[in-house]
């Protein structure tokens, strides 16, 4: 027995698009950090050596400053930022502690292979207050990693080196295959950096962390070739609705 509804046209299934998976991941992490109390700040992708390196205690001899690692523009007058850290510098110069900023966006390094690209995305955070300690940094990192990968994920901290943090650490998570995978860098803000931003390092200390969005996205989406993100292939983009 047919009814009127049998002759109605089929329900229109509208084609929906999708946010780029990197921006989706960036927004997810930023929203998480905002929920922790961080404030979002932005800065330019074209930076000066002063903000990208000098203010961050990255000395002239640091390999990152070489032409083979950093894109310089217009006769070395400026450069493409190699990390989002200069945004933190701009934030600290504008505001006084206590402060807690995050910034996310594109960064550039002279790399190009299956795991590195000349452009990728980072999110960095900084918190400056009185008596901030490494033990508190660990608490924050555990919260971030557990929020991203679940409470059961195993993580470890190991010593590392970043000129703008001291002590510095890299954080790995244990994959289901039993391999440790590096996911972020962090540390206590080097007092030199605080002083560069006119913050009294005897009174205040800070913690900072930074993570590569592509790396987290590759882990979450189970991908092994970073280049897929930037082919603008609809077969790829259509998977992330």
């Amino acid at each position, binding site marked *: 027995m047919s009814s009127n509804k049998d002759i109605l046209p089929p329900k229109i299934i509208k084609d929906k698009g*999708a*946010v780029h998976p990197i921006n989706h991941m960036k927004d997810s992490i930023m929203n998480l950090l*905002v929920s922790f*109390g961080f404030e979002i700040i932005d800065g330019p992708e074209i930076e000066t050596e002063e903000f990208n390196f000098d203010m961050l205690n990255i000395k002239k001899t640091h390999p990152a400053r070489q032409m083979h690692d950093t*894109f310089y523009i217009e006769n070395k007058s400026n450069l*493409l930022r190699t990390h989002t850290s200069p945004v933190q510098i701009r934030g600290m110069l504008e505001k006084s502690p*206590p402060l807690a900023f995050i910034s996310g966006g594109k960064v550039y390094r002279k790399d190009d292979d299956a795991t590195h690209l000349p452009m990728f995305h980072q999110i960095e955070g900084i918190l400056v207050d009185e008596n901030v300690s490494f033990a508190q940094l*660990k608490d924050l990192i555990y919260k971030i990693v557990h929020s991203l990968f679940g409470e059961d994920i195993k993580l470890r901290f190991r010593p590392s*080196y970043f000129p703008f943090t001291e002590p510095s650490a890299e954080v790995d998570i244990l994959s289901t295959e039993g391999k440790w995978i590096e996911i972020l860098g962090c540390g206590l803000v080097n007092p030199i950096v605080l002083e560069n931003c006119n913050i009294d390092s005897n009174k205040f*200390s800070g913690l900072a962390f930074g993570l590569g969005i592509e790396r987290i996205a590759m882990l979450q989406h189970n991908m092994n070739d970073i280049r897929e993100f930037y082919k603008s292939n609809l077969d790829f983009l259509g998977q992330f609705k």
Partner: protein
Amino acid sequence: MKISYSHLVSQIKENPSIEMISESLFQLGHEHEIDGDILNMELTPNRGDCLSLNGLLRDLSVFYTVNFKEKIYSEKLDKLQLDFENLSQNTCPKISFLKMEIDKIPKEYNQYLNDYFMKLNLNKNNFFTDVSNYLSYETGQPTHCYDASKINGKLILQELEINQEFHTLLDKKITLSDKNSFFSINDEVVNLAGVVGGKSTACTSGTKTVLVECAFFEPEAIIGKSLKYDIQSEASHKFERFVDPESHDYVIRRFINIVSEHANIKDMSFISYEYKKKQAIKIPVNVDKINQILGIDITEDQYVNYLSKLGFIINDDLINVPSYRSDISSQNDLSEEVARIIGYDNISKHKLPFVKGKTSNTDSIENKLRFLLIDHGFYEVINFPFSNEKYIDSIKIDNPLDSNKEHMRTNLINSLLENLAFNERRQKDSIKLFEISDVYNFKNNKIKKKRNLAIIASGRVGHNHIDFQKKINKKYLTNLFKDVLPSEDFAIKIFNREGLNSKIKNEIVGCEIDIENFSTEVLNYKEETRPPNSFKKFSQISDLPSSSRDLSFSIKDFSSRQNLEKYILGYENELIKEKFIFDYFYNENSAEIKIGFRFIFQSANSTITETQVNNVMNDIIRHTEKIKGVTIPGLN
């Protein structure tokens, strides 16, 4: 850097296994991989002091009892009369020379020296160079050996802009350019300081009289040179990361000792030039500060004990930093030493009290536009900013990765046109893309930034029975914004297909706007779509060609329509990539519904064949034929 486990363990009393050593090194922050007996070390650039056997042993002293067994020559050394001038004392504040003559060149090496070449799989060169290389491995201090008989003039060290060919001892000819630190004799470069020596004064298998140079070069003078001249140089790797300026006497005396174990030394003399002494670093003992930085609670005795194990000397409440630790100058640096010894993972978490921040601006016009487009089937893309197009206001990259893309793009639309052509070549018939990004230009010696939104679209409006027949055109895109942002001019235009490398003829429409120049009027739109809460697992993309088939049905018994739709839209086959209703028509006069389905086939592994497609289609037909009141016109 490669270090042999057996070389390490031979000086450790507890005789730990390679796994135990590995774990200790890891806790200390020294990343490495194990390859048999070899530890392939990847040290952080601030730990130049660990680029040697002894350097690593110094750090391992924290966990083990290390006995440094090396013997050094302890007698007084005669003063060398050397015709040398240092015109570059800022880049080389300390340099020492040893001149030595041996009676004959050893045919065999002692076991430890042989062992070094064998375990690390290294080629031997000549006696003095071999000793120099071993010493660099053992102590971390590179030395350079000149054949003293080939030095026939005044040796001058200088840092100058130079343009001269230099024949290295590796038998490679390079042209020195720009500023370099180099040693020369009679205006001929004989040694690129801290990187590689020259062939004209190099030691050979016949060298019996050697001039050994042991220098401290400021890293600034060395950095980047080996890369610039494409020279693999262990020495420059070490100088770039800081060597111990106070090690010269020890290293030279160790050199003499090793030589004396292999040959009779007929004559030797030594001279050391120190133009500017490195200031010793002293830091007050302040365990409270260390406890505050790390969030721990150790006693001063524990603290002092930790530092003593690492070679720090504590006198009068001051911590004397060893000369080889160029990375230590503050309380925070010392706190890292303590953290490494305790183990980062052994430091307990403390709850972080938060400074409350502001919430993000999810209602920004940028986000509203983003979700409006997504609701209408547009996909967001992200493109690299490097472009082959040069405009009058383009920013030029000094050192592009690809010389064909040496400018920053000044617009987004050209990238989107390339994305569109790429997808057309992948047989996509409905392409809707957008990108939101900063773009930069260079005007009047100033860099200017804009925040742009660019949109491009072409082909069918969508994959449903209404949109399938419609083609994207200027009107389609104009209507998209007409209701939600009536006051804004998106300047939508039709783009030329010239140069797109695509055979498709569909009209391309798009626009590019500066979002920051938009009016502050709030976009009147409530998005339907939100990004998923979870992260989907990626499926491998097939680059193989796809194939499509259409199947049209006539339905006389309308009650069967739902069955038909349910069956086809629910039909699963690994070769079917997409399926949708592309046509629907109800003919009241003939009391008939005509409905068309499109199937798109693609294989992940091989180019799909006609037979494969037919097999799937026949299966669908076989089943649908059984549905009452449904026929496939033209099929008997």
